[in-house]
């Protein structure tokens, strides 16, 4: 009769995860038991508290982890400084992201459909909207996603990594489909994201299987040891190489690197903007962290014993990095939609990150972390700004009421994401514009913003790895990138907003066409809301009924404004006095992940 031996578990190390995921579970219960009036508030408070708590635990953990990494439950959770740093960054960014999500603005509507399951334009949906339904499930979903990300970034076990991948992906799939406006786009985004994501994770897991076949284990460090010991069987290297390749591909998909990037622009455009910001920032952190861990543990984890493997991986990363930078920047140049432009910019940034990672040396970890932080702040801030720039339709007769009307007459519609529509924003909302400009400059890597220090670190990493020519390529690519950020700057700051109604009206219509915007707000009658074809008919409707769409900036109810302010200030501080943060992340590269 053997007695039960409880496993030794370092609960403190698990605490951040437990807090977040636990809060997620609690959130589900809240949906069930808390009365509707206070439900939303409770959820928000809970989510923010959970993230803050998680961050607190991380802060507590940090000193001991930087001294000695720990492995919990046999490595399923491996906390290196790098992993913990990634967790911390995810927590911070998620906190800001939740703030943006939680903001209902002065229109009193958040960005989410009252009943996402309802078919757009059906009476039921109208009913749901009128009765002011709200989907507060998004908060638990967000928490689950965050939990998945934190786990994703900090495990040594490929299977756990796979599960974490799903845990972070599935909620995101759902969240993508919940946009209040432009429902079709939102759903399409979800579908694409899901199908491609599933495909990618299938590749990933098959890769895991192959690696398992080679090594007989799915623990990265053990795999590395096997590699060191040499090949057990002839031709097994094929298993290893193709396996690692597939795994890396699976990760690169999440990172959004060319040629696995195709989902990024569509999903970023279709998803509700706050979610896009959250997704763009946090997912990238998690994915890059995981990528670094896999690559580095396998290649240099045990002293780069197998030059072939290392070499092959490096080549893969270099090739992908170049492709990513080129496509991201060059295609970004021809974008006309702000969200799409930001999507391509995130692709380009994936490229710059990879340039650093391709250096394959331990110090890169810290510069990568800093890059992720800088990028994440700028991204969340930028998308938060996007959520506040709206179209306002002004009809002769006050149209059917949907949601309370903001200041001034007319009805506030969805975001005005056409770059052309942003003309003259500088006069409408100077501070908001200034913040957005700051984020763009940071993304462009202009000195005295966080982005510059980050880019400097990335290119330095590549040069340390002897890839100075790759660094030069990166530099050239970032020149091109600057070009398209500047384009937006010019429109916002220097161009005057077009005044005469007709032009704006038609402009908005074209905008509607090009983004396939069939937002049910614009046309309550469900007839048109089927496909792009119908979108054309509904444009006729618009033009004939002399409505004009003007671009307005809705006031935030607070949270989003806070988020933007925090992002902006942080961006500047990290640009001018980065040394404290750099000092922190520098410790991250003390150990190979």
């Amino acid at each position: 009769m053997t007695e039960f031996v409880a496993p030794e578990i370092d609960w403190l190390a698990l605490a951040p995860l437990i807090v977040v995921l636990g809060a997620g579970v609690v959130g589900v219960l809240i949906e069930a038991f808390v009365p509707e009036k206070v439900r939303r508030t409770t959820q928000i408070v809970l989510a923010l508290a959970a993230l803050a708590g998680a961050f607190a635990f991380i802060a507590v953990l940090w000193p001991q982890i930087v001294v000695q990494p720990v492995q919990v439950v046999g490595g399923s959770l491996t906390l290196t400084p790098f992993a913990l740093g990634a967790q911390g960054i995810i927590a911070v960014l998620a906190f800001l992201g939740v703030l943006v999500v939680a903001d209902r603005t002065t229109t009193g509507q958040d960005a989410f459909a009252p009943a996402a399951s309802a078919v757009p334009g059906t009476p039921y949906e109208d009913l749901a909207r009128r009765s002011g339904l709200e989907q507060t499930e998004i908060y638990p979903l967000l928490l689950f996603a965050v939990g998945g990300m934190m786990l994703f970034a900090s495990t040594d076990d490929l299977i756990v990594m796979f599960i974490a991948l799903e845990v972070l992906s599935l909620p995101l799939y759902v969240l993508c489909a919940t946009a209040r406006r432009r429902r079709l786009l939102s759903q399409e985004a979800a579908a694409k994201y899901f199908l491609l994501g599933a495909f990618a994770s299938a590749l990933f897991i098959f890769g895991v299987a192959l690696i398992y076949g080679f090594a007989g284990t799915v623990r990265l460090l053990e795999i590395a040891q096997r590699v060191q010991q040499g090949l057990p069987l002839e031709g097994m290297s094929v298993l290893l190489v193709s396996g690692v390749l597939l795994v890396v591909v699976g990760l690169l998909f999440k990172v959004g690197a060319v040629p696995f990037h195709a989902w990024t622009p569509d999903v970023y455009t279709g998803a509700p903007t706050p979610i896009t910001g959250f997704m763009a920032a946090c997912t990238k952190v998690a994915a890059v962290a995981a990528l670094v861990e896999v690559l580095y543990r396998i290649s240099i984890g045990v002293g780069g014993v197998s030059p072939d493997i290392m070499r092959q991986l490096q080549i893969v990363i270099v090739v992908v990095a170049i492709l990513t930078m080129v496509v991201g920047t060059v295609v970004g140049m021809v974008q006309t939609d702000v969200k799409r432009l930001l999507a391509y910019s995130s692709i380009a940034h994936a490229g710059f990150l990879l340039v650093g990672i391709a250096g394959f040396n331990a110090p890169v970890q810290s510069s990568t972390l800093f890059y992720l932080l800088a990028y994440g702040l700028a991204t969340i801030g930028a998308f938060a700004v996007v959520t506040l720039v709206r179209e306002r339709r002004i009809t002769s007769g006050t149209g059917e009421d949907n949601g309370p009307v903001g200041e001034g007459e007319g009805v506030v519609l969805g975001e005005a994401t056409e770059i052309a529509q942003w003309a003259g924003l500088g006069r409408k909302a100077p501070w908001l514009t200034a913040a957005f400009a700051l984020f763009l400059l940071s993304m462009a890597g202009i000195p005295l913003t966080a982005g510059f220090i980050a880019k400097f670190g990335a290119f330095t990493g590549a040069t340390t790895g002897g890839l100075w020519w790759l660094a030069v390529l990166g530099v050239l690519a970032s020149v091109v990138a600057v070009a398209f950020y500047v384009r937006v700057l010019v429109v916002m700051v220097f161009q005057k907003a077009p005044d005469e109604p007709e032009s704006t009206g038609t402009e908005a219509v074209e905008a509607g066409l090009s983004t396939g915007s069939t937002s049910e707000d614009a046309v309550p009658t469900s007839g048109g809301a089927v496909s792009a074809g119908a979108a054309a008919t509904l444009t006729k409707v618009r033009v004939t009924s002399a409505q004009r769409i003007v671009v307005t900036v809705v006031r935030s109810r607070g949270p989003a404004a806070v988020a933007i302010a925090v992002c902006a200030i942080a961006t500047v501080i990290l640009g001018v006095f980065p040394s404290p943060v750099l000092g922190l992340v520098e410790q991250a590269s003390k150990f190979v992940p």
Partner: protein
Amino acid sequence: MNDVIGLAPWLIGIPLIGAAILLLGGKATDRWGHWLGVAASAASGVIGFILMFRMIGTPAEERSVDHHLWTWLSAGGLDVDLGLRLDPLSLVFVMLVTFVGTLIHVYSVAYMDHDPHRRRFFAYLNLFVAAMLTLVLADSYLLLFVGWEGVGLASYLLIGFWDTGRPSARENAVAAKKAFVMNRIGDMGLIAAMALLFAGTGALDFATTLSDDTLGSLSEGTATAIGLCLLLAACGKSAQFPLQAWLGDAMAGPTPVSALIHAATMVTAGVYLMVRSGPILEAAPTAQLVVVIVGAVTLLFGAVVGTAKDDIKKALAASTMSQIGYMMLAAGLGPAGYAFAIFHLLTHGFFKAGLFLGAGSVMHAMGDQTDMRRFGGLSRFLPITWITMGLGWLAILGIPPFSGFWSKDGIIEAAFIPVEGQPWRAWVFGTVAVLGAGITAFYMTRLFFMTFGGRRPRWTENQHPHEGSPLMWWPLVFLGVGSAALGLVLGVGGTFVTWLEPVVGHAEHHEPVLPVPVIITSTLVVVVLGALLAFRMYAMSLVPEEAPRGSFLTRAARRDLYQDAANETLVLKPAHGVARLLQVGDRDVVDRGWSLLPQVLSWFGAVFRKAQSGYVRSYAAGMAGGVLVIAVVAWLVVGLGGAQ
């Protein structure tokens, strides 16, 4: 000497301050401004006299004093003081500039009486005096260059004095610009010369650069280069061939300006530069020869042009050009010529100024009419002008004992002095000089009689010519006396030559190829012939009011022997073509080239963008394809790596 040397800076300072007051003072100084100008000029004249007086008192070998004011430019081995050099040469100029200058100031008070901007005019005149004195008093090429361009500026301002509010305003402005730009072309030479000098001698001040040991260190090639560069500068400033085109147009300025700047002083700065740089030229025979040739060419050129001009000022300008040609020629002849170059410069300063002022008073009397075919028979109406100009006329003809004779004859004799190895030179240049004298006699006589002589007046009845105010004719008298007597005073016994010896060195006497009396008589004969010819044509017979078509040569001469046309076709047109080419090139090649970059990129962008088709399956296909491609690439590269 040293007790009064402290006054030297005030030679320049006073007129400069005068100019400053007049320019900055604005309308407030309108009432008395012109008298301030006169006073300033006169004051530096007085100082000049004092210095002159003291210098005469000092023994010859101590007559060259450098007065250091402050270190001007000291960098990287180049040390240039802001200093003045007082020696016989510079003082001669000081006297000329201040004396003639003051007279012309006085004359202008009356001449510009009706001009609303008289104050500005006097400011510019003072500025000119200051700059000219800087030029001649400078003790280094660099400071000389300051005065050099300073007078250029003053001349620019004064030529263009009437550059608005008149029908001819634009032309005046263009003439002014032309003068300045052509001067600048010459200045390139001075800059290059300074560069060469610094590279060769490591200094720019006269004391160092012109001392024998430094020059000994210079290779003849360098010396020649420097000499030619200096010559270029001189040509620009003194309207010598081929940079002579601006002088004729410069007559657009008020007549006193023409008298002071474009006859008496500024245009002779080139000669001063040549004489001052004598040691360098002597180290470079080739350069000397070129100087002589330029002088000879110009003196003929000017003379020929002079014969055909009907505009009295342009005729005088041409004659100025030609007379400076004489000086240049002399300056190229070495020590034998220097003294006479300066001597002629001095006398010419007087009689040419007199002639110009006379012309001015004629114009004043005839309502700014300058066409001599509209004059005639003025002697009765303008007696003083008639007499004073007559003296000037005799002087320039070189009739003894008038001043021109002493200086010009010296030059002609010097031209006949043989140069060993090149016997032809003496003959050629001697003949040219004599010939020039003849032509000079012709056109000056023509000018004189077309203006004052002739059977009947050729002006319309409603004009009532009369002498101007005393302010105008007193200066004429002074200058007339000067033109008559100056030569006699300074020429007899070679007073002037010995006076200059400390500077230009002693010229040991050479015998001309012809005996001196022969030269003198033949010159006089030629001169008289020329004069008689002109007398027959313009005094005895009627002068048509409309210029006859004339022979080819006449027409050519009227158009300055096509110098402007030549410049136009040889320089301006090609230059403009080049400029156009550059302009188009910059727009369509450089600029467009840069703007091509983003275009190409966005083209690629549009191409890649097509890949984003919106179809899930194509995305998936892209991913699958990507996997394969990357795998292949990885394998290939490593395969190669393994192969190595």
